[in-house]
C-alpha cells in the first residue's frame, strides 16, 4: 500500500497553560494524496496550531511528521516550502507596496536573475505562469495594496501553487472571499488535487466541507475526535462531534421576532465617498437589524468607516436621532453613540499584547475615570462581568488576546463596545472565523441588543447570516445600492447574489 502523503503521529503542542494540540502518543492522522482533507472544530480546537506545525511556522512540542515515507521536521516556513509544503492563511501575506508580479516571484530570484541581475522578461514570464493557476485575470503591474483583499488572497494562492507543492494548507482563506472567489478557489483546488496532490482545508463553513472535501477530520480541545468520509456524514453529525453534543439549528435568531420600531435612528441621505461608493441612502430604526451585503470591495466597509468618523465622506448627510451629525474622528462618533466592530479584529479591533480587561475598557476610558484617574478595580469588575456574560474563555482578565482563539477574541472586541450602551452598533463580519457555538452566541447577543433598542448595522459577507439575522437588507454593488429586501419577503441566497454580481 502506498504511504499517505502526510502522516502526523502523536503530535502535541504545549503553550503556557494550554495544550493546543494533544494527540495521544501513538495516535496518527493520515492524509491521502489526491484528497481535499478538511479539518473542522470549534475555535480553539487546535486546527490552526496543527496546520502551523505542518507548515513549519512553529515546531511541535512532541510527535513526528512524515511526508510520504520520509521523516519531515521543517525548521521554518522556507524549509517546509522547499520540501513541498505550503500554506495560505486567513491573514494577508503579501508585501503590499510591491506589484503583483514582484510578489509572485518573491524568493525565487535565482530563477529570473541568472548572474545576480534581474532579467525583466524572465521575471514577467515566471509571474505570468504563476497567475495561470487562477481563473480570473489580474494585472501583473498593479501594486498589491490597490487590490481587494480577495484578489490579494488569490495572488497568494497563485504564488503557492506556482511552487508546485505536494501539500497545500488552506487555513480559513474563504473567510476573506466573496461567493465568486470561493467558487474560483474550489475549482483551483480540485484541479490541484487531481494531479495527486494533497490539500488540507480549514473552514468554519461546513457546507464548503461537503461541497469540496473528500475526508473530514474533527478536532476538539486539541484532540482528534474522528476522521470520516465527507460522503458518509452530514452537517448535524459534524456539528455534534465538534461541540460534543447535538446542536439545534438555532444558529440565527428565531424567525418572526423583530424589535424594529418605526422610530428613525440613523438617517443617511446621499452619502458618497469619491472612488468608493456613491449616493447611499437608508434609514436605520431603533431596534432594527439592517443587513448590508455585497462583494468584497463593494464599498460597504468605507461606508461604515465614514459613519464612524474614521473616513470623511465627500458628500451627503447623516442624522443621528434627528440631529445632523458629521464626525471627523472616531472618538467623536463614539461619544455620539456609534460603535464599530471592524472586519479585521486582529489589525483593527484588538491590542493583542494588552490584557483583556484593558482592551475591554479602551473605548470607555472617560467613563471609567474620574478627573483622569482610572479606577482599576472598576475596570476589573467590568471585564469580569463580560467574561462571565459572554463566556469568554480566559484564565483571568490579565490574559492577553494573543493567546485567545478567534471567537474569544471577537467576544473581547464586542465587550469593548458594550461597556457603555450605544445607539448604533456597526458590526462588520461579526462571526468571521468564529466557530458554530460562538456564532450562535454572538447572534443571540445581537438580537438581544436590538431588543434593547439599539440600531444594528450588520455588514456581512455571509449570506445565511445576512438572511438569518436582518430585518431589512440593503445590497451593494460597486459602490452603489443595488437592491433592498426585507425579512418578510423571505429572500433567497440566489436573489441576493443577483444583486451582488
Amino acid at each position, binding site marked *: 500500500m502506498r504511504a499517505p502523503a502526510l502522516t502526523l503521529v502523536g503530535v502535541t503542542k*504545549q503553550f*503556557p*497553560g494550554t495544550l493546543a494540540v494533544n494527540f495521544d502518543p501513538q495516535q496518527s492522522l493520515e492524509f491521502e494524496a489526491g484528497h481535499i482533507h478538511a479539518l473542522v472544530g470549534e475555535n480553539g480546537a487546535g486546527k490552526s496550531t496543527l496546520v502551523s506545525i505542518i507548515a513549519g511556522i512553529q515546531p511541535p512540542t512532541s510527535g513526528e511528521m512524515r511526508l510520504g515515507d520520509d521523516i519531515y521536521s521543517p525548521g521554518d516556513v522556507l524549509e517546509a516550502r522547499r520540501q513541498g509544503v505550503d500554506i495560505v492563511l486567513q491573514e494577508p501575506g503579501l508585501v503590499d507596496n510591491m506589484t503583483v508580479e514582484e510578489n509572485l516571484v518573491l524568493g525565487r530570484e535565482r530563477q529570473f536573475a541568472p548572474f545576480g541581475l534581474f532579467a525583466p522578461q524572465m521575471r514577467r514570464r515566471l509571474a505570468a505562469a504563476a497567475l495561470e493557476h487562477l481563473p480570473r485575470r489580474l494585472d501583473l503591474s498593479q501594486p498589491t495594496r490597490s487590490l481587494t483583499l480577495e484578489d490579494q488572497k488569490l495572488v497568494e494562492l497563485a504564488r503557492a501553487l506556482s511552487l508546485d507543492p505536494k501539500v497545500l494548507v488552506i487555513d480559513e482563506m474563504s473567510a476573506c472571499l466573496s461567493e465568486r472567489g470561493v467558487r474560483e478557489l474550489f475549482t483551483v483546488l480540485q484541479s490541484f488535487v487531481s494531479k495527486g496532490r494533497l490539500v488540507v482545508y480549514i473552514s468554519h463553513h461546513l457546507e464548503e466541507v461537503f461541497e469540496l472535501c473528500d475526508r473530514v477530520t474533527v478536532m476538539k480541545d486539541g484532540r482528534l475526535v474522528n476522521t470520516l468520509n465527507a460522503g458518509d456524514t452530514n452537517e448535524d453529525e459534524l456539528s455534534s462531534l465538534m461541540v460534543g453534543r447535538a446542536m439545534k439549528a438555532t444558529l440565527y435568531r428565531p424567525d418572526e421576532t423583530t424589535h424594529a420600531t418605526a422610530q428613525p435612528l440613523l438617517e443617511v441621505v446621499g452619502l458618497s465617498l469619491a472612488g468608493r461608493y456613491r449616493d447611499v441612502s437608508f434609514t436605520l430604526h431603533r431596534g432594527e437589524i439592517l443587513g448590508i451585503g455585497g462583494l468584497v470591495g463593494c464599498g460597504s466597509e468605507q461606508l461604515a468607516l465614514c459613519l464612524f468618523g474614521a473616513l470623511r465622506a465627500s458628500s451627503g448627510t447623516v442624522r443621528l436621532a434627528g440631529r445632523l451629525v458629521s464626525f471627523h474622528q472616531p472618538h467623536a462618533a463614539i461619544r455620539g453613540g456609534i460603535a464599530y466592530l471592524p472586519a479585521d479584529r486582529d489589525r483593527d479591533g*484588538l491590542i493583542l*499584547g494588552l490584557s483583556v480587561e484593558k482592551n475591554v*475598557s*479602551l473605548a470607555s476610558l472617560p467613563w471609567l475615570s474620574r478627573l483622569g484617574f482610572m479606577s482599576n478595580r472598576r475596570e476589573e469588575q467590568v471585564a469580569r462581568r463580560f467574561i462571565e456574560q459572554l463566556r469568554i474563555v480566559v484564565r483571568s482578565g490579565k490574559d492577553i488576546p494573543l493567546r485567545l482563539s478567534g471567537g474569544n477574541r471577537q467576544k473581547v472586541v464586542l465587550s*469593548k463596545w458594550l461597556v457603555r450602551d450605544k445607539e448604533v452598533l456597526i458590526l462588520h463580519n461579526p462571526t468571521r472565523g468564529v466557530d458554530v457555538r460562538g456564532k450562535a452566541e454572538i447572534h443571540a447577543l445581537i438580537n438581544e441588543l436590538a431588543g434593547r433598542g439599539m440600531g444594528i448595522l450588520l455588514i456581512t459577507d455571509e449570506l445565511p447570516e445576512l438572511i438569518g439575522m436582518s430585518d431589512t437588507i440593503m445590497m451593494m454593488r460597486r459602490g452603489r445600492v443595488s437592491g433592498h429586501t426585507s425579512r418578510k419577503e423571505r429572500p433567497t441566497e440566489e436573489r441576493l447574489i443577483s444583486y451582488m454580481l
Partner: protein
Amino acid sequence: MKTGEQPPATIGPSGFGAVAARAREAARSGRLIPPRLVPFLALIIVSAFFWVTAGDRFMSIDNGSFLLQQSAIIAIPAFGVTMVIISWSIDLSVGSLVALTGMVAAVVSVDHGPVVGLLAGVAVGVAAGVLNGIGLAVLKVPSFMVTLGMLSVGRGLTIIVSQSQPVDVARGFQAVGHPPGLFILFALCFAGAWVLLNYTSFGRRAVAIGGNERVARLSGVPVGREKILLFMFSGLMAGLGGIALTARTGAATPTAAMGFELTAIAAVVLGGTPLTGGVGSMLNTVIGAFILSILLNGMIILGIPSEIQLVVQGLVLIGAVLLSLERSKIGIIK
C-alpha cells in the same frame, strides 16, 4: 480549557504586564532568569563589580549620596522619555531641553529671583515639548526627526540665551539641586510619573497607542491630542531635570547635558522598557538610571579616560536595546 503548568510570574502588578509577557516567553524558551529580574540583577552585578575593583572609594556614604543625586538627575528627564517610548515614539531633544531650560532658569533668576527663574525654565520645557508634539501629531513628521530637529534648535537657543557664557545661578536656586531638595523633587516626579502611567486614562492611552495606534484610534483614543500631551510631559520633565542639573552645578553652561538624550534613553532601556512601545514601567527606569550612574561613577573612580567612558556608554546602550527589543513586534529592523 486546560490549565497545565503555569510559569511563575505570569500575573504581576499592572506595570509589569510587559515584563510578565516576556517572563512567559522566557519560560517557554527555557531561559533561567525571568527577564523582569534582569535589570535588578544587572544593578547588583554592576555594584558588586565596582565594589570589588574600586573598594571603599566606591562603597562609601559620600559616594552613595553622590550616586543618588546623579541618578535623580538622570531619572527625572528619563521619566518623560519613558512615557514617550511607551507610546512607541522617541524623544531625542531632552538633552538640549535640559540645557535650555536650565539656562533660561539661570538667566531669569539673575534679575527676577529663583522662583520666577524656576518657573520660566519649566515653562520653556513645556512649550518645547508641545512644539515637538505638534510637529508629530499635526504636521505628521516622525518623532525621531522632529525631536532631532528640536535637539539642534534647543542647543542653538541655549547658546543664544547664554551669550556663550556660563551663567551663575541666583542664591536660593541651589536648593533644588542638592539634598534634600533634589530628593524631594525626584520623589515627586517619580510618584507623579508612576501614577500618571498606571492610574490615569492619560497613561492608559499612551500604552494603547504604543500597543497599536490604529486600534487605539478606532477605539476612540484622541491620538493627536494624546501625543501632544505626551511630548508636553516629556518637556516638563526635561525642564525639571534642567533646573535640577543647573542648581546642582551652580551654573548653567551652554554645553551642559551634551548627549544627555542618549543617557536618558539608555536609562529607560536598561530598565527593561522596550523601544517597541505598549509596555513599560517607571520603577524600571529608576533602576536603569541607577545602573547607568553607577557605571559612569565607577569608571571615573577607576580612572578610566572620558573618551573610553563614552565608548562604554554607547556600547551599553546598544547592548540594552539588544536585550529589550521585542523583535516579534517589529519583525523588520530599520
